[in-house]
């Protein structure tokens, strides 16, 4: 399930819902990405502003999920991604992957997170006490995603 959340969401509740919907999973790996207090410009972050392309963004995520489901024996994937104005400490993204065995769940979650960073259609701007900066994927993000091309 893919959810674009326009306002703050609770990752713990997302995990609870995922477990309830997938009672048979032997292993669930989840990831929560949060807004950091420090901006890339070195200042103190006030707001992380995330925008997306409604419809197209959801499909870009669905393509990542489909790729993970083809590659690993996993039972379910759930992704919640925030948009709008976020404060430090708020959750940006929640990813849960359920599988019969932990290695598949773990690798698939890793893969999904790597591709969300580089392929999912979100754009983010940091607004700090020093100014505004659009955030591009870091070189490391591209390197992480490239690990899966073998």
């Amino acid at each position, binding site marked *: 399930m893919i959810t674009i959340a326009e306002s703050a969401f609770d990752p713990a509740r997302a995990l609870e819902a995922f477990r309830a919907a997938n009672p048979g999973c032997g292993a669930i790996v989840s990831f929560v990405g949060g807004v950091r207090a420090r901006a890339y410009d070195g200042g103190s972050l006030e707001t992380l502003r995330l925008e997306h392309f409604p419809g*197209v963004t959801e499909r870009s995520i669905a393509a990542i999920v489909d790729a993970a489901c083809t590659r690993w024996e996993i039972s379910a994937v759930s992704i919640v991604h925030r948009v709008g104005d976020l404060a430090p400490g708020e959750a*940006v*993204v929640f990813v849960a992957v359920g599988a019969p065995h932990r290695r598949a769940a773990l690798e698939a979650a890793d893969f999904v997170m790597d591709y969300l960073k*580089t392929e999912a259609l979100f754009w983010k701007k940091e607004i700090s006490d020093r100014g505004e900066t659009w*955030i591009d994927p870091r070189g490391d993000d591209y390197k992480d995603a490239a690990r899966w091309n073998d």
Partner: protein
Amino acid sequence: MARLLFFGRLADRAGGRRRERSLGDDVLSVADLIAALAAEDAALGDALRDISVKYVVNETVVGVDYPIGDDDEIAFLPPASGG
């Protein structure tokens, strides 16, 4: 009227996230549209021609030579960064 969408830093550059524009007889492709926009704002033109920008017409990623018309939605996407 064609609908133009600008995302991320391109919206800042274009001075807004959306615009309507009559393409006229000279604008037959994405490349033509960029040329027309560049004629009005050279910096925006350069930004739209950047190798990292994706063109999406009616929610499908296309090449720069893709044909467009006044019924289309043309979106300009800078590098995305989720998660």
